[in-house]
């Protein structure tokens, strides 16, 4: 019972959320923020596997999210709705609620394959050099997609809302919320189980002393492939969910700025701390939303105080000044993040009764 406490708690919270949404308790905006939180958790915790546990600096994580978003969108449209690109739907739209997991899984698997772009060079390079390769991977993926005119090129791709509508036609439930909750749960459970297994601890061994790991019997190249593929696969899952949440994807949404968001969440939470990064993803999502209100308020205040010239407006673009600034301040004053490589159970030992990170 105690061992499952966290799972049960999550299940109860999820059921409550779905029920409350169904009862119209949340407006559309709050709901979108909630779902975005889940997607950010998946995005950040998967990046944490490489940047935190394995100690490599991947800064092109959004590229894999982009792959997942496009593959998920294309499959979803091909499967469940008629379109100019694919013609008639492959399956009757009534099957959407049952076959949608297949879309998510395939999107993750393809994204995982793209993870090899980074995994294979990692056999011979590390640190800064690998970081440059990850940025390159991000750009390769975005440029690739932008140049395939068939799937919209730079105009983006849409039509995924029809899949969600098809689900609602079958059973009237907040389906998108349900899939985000399931995706988040699967992602966190998978990562938790991986990093607490002896096999998965090989990832940290590679980080802390690669030579010792290889010589003491850890297949370091195998571990690297596994970690990069799991990480990018889960980013793909986040991407597929993201695409369906907005009903529209555009490759430019997954550029280096998106990757930077992931980095901020990981370094805010603490590298190699699963619970820390989950907290950071939640906090970061809230913070970005708060900025939507704070920036105009600041603008008004500064204008009222005469501190800004009347011709100059503080726009939402300032978000992209503030978020990287957080990264700089973090690196300067608390490079290990909120929790360092510790888990919440180290900070609050009483939690150990409910969950153990051994």
């Amino acid at each position, binding site marked *: 019972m105690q061992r499952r406490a966290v799972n049960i708690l999550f299940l109860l919270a999820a059921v409550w959320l779905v029920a409350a949404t169904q009862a119209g308790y949340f407006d559309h905006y709050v709901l979108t923020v909630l779902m975005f939180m889940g997607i950010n958790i998946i995005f950040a915790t998967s990046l944490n596997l490489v940047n935190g546990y394995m100690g490599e600096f991947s800064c092109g994580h959004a590229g894999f999210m982009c792959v997942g978003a496009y593959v998920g969108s294309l499959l979803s449209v091909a499967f469940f709705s008629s379109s100019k690109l694919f013609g008639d739907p492959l399956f009757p739209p009534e099957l959407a609620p049952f076959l949608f997991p297949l879309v998510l899984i395939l999107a993750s698997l393809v994204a995982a394959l793209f993870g090899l772009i980074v995994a294979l060079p990692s056999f011979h390079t590390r640190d800064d050099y690998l970081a440059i390769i990850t940025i390159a991977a991000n750009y390769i993926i975005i440029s690739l997609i932008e140049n395939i005119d068939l799937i919209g090129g730079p105009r983006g791709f849409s039509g995924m809302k029809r899949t969600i509508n098809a689900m609602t036609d079958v059973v009237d439930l907040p389906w998108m919320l349900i899939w985000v909750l399931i995706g988040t749960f699967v992602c966190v459970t*998978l990562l938790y*189980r*991986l990093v607490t*297994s*002896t*096999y*998965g*601890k*090989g990832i*940290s*061994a590679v980080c*802390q*002393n690669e*030579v*010792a*790991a*290889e*010589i*003491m*019997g*850890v*297949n*370091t*190249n195998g571990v690297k492939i*596994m970690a990069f593929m*799991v990480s990018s696969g889960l980013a793909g899952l986040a991407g597929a969910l993201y695409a369906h949440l907005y009903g529209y994807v555009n490759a430019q949404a997954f550029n280096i700025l998106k990757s930077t968001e992931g980095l901020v969440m990981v370094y805010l939470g603490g590298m*190699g701390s699963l619970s820390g990064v989950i907290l950071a993803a939640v906090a970061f999502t809230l913070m970005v939303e708060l900025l939507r209100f704070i920036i105009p308020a600041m603008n008004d205040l500064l204008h009222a105080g005469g501190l800004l010239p009347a011709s100059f407006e503080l726009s939402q673009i300032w978000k992209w000044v503030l978020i990287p600034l957080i990264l700089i301040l973090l690196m300067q004053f608390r490079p290990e993040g909120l929790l360092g*490589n510790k888990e919440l159970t180290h900070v609050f030992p009483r939690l150990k009764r409910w969950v153990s990170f051994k």
Partner: protein
Amino acid sequence: MALLEINGLTQRFGGLQALTNFSISLEAHDLIGLIGPNGAGKTTVFNLVSGFYTPTEGTITFNGKPTRGLKPHQVAGLGMARTFQNIRLWNDMSVLDNIRIAQSHWLGYGFLDAVWRSGRYRRVEKGVEKKSREILDIMGLTEFTDELPKNLPYGLQRRVELARALSTNPKLLLLDEPAAGLNSADVDGLIRHIRWIYDEFRICIWMIEHQMKVVMSLCQRISVIDFGRTIAAGTPAEIQANPDVIKAYLGDDTL
């Protein structure tokens, strides 16, 4: 059949000949020393044997299998373990985890088992944990099970590294300067410890060591290398009397 058979091993790094024509044969229950002045090529020998370098020339046969082309983790899987000259523990994981990870080569389950927590996963993990705790018990490290190695005193870190190597059930244990950085009381303890491991586990131990006290009191045979060449081999008494060895260590007295 010899456990480890090395023939004509030569290693060149660019223009530097680090090791020339090195040969040795170790039996299943030997305790052998490898000595030589700094930079003589001793650690190079160990790095070649454990598969970290691929030899320029020569053959290494371990337990009847040529190891050329094998990755270090595959060589480890054949039953070879080593410790390092400067301790290489995984410092941010508990002592127990350090031992657990060293079991990687026989886990036999994969990613899906780990994530699904299959029956095989649970069985293997139980075995790994039991075995790790046993080895910590044998090595007198039980009270440090949950400590981080970086918080332990140097002598204990060395012992954890030794425990980690032994936990892989090696047939051959390579010790790279096990006494480096230990004070004289610790060195006496280490000598007893190595002798005890040698008797208890009945394995082959091959060690590089600078402290003559350790080598002379433990090893049955010693080989001496200098500038990558084997200059002497024999029992401790023979080595101590060998003029070439004295010359290598103390220099030539004819100026």
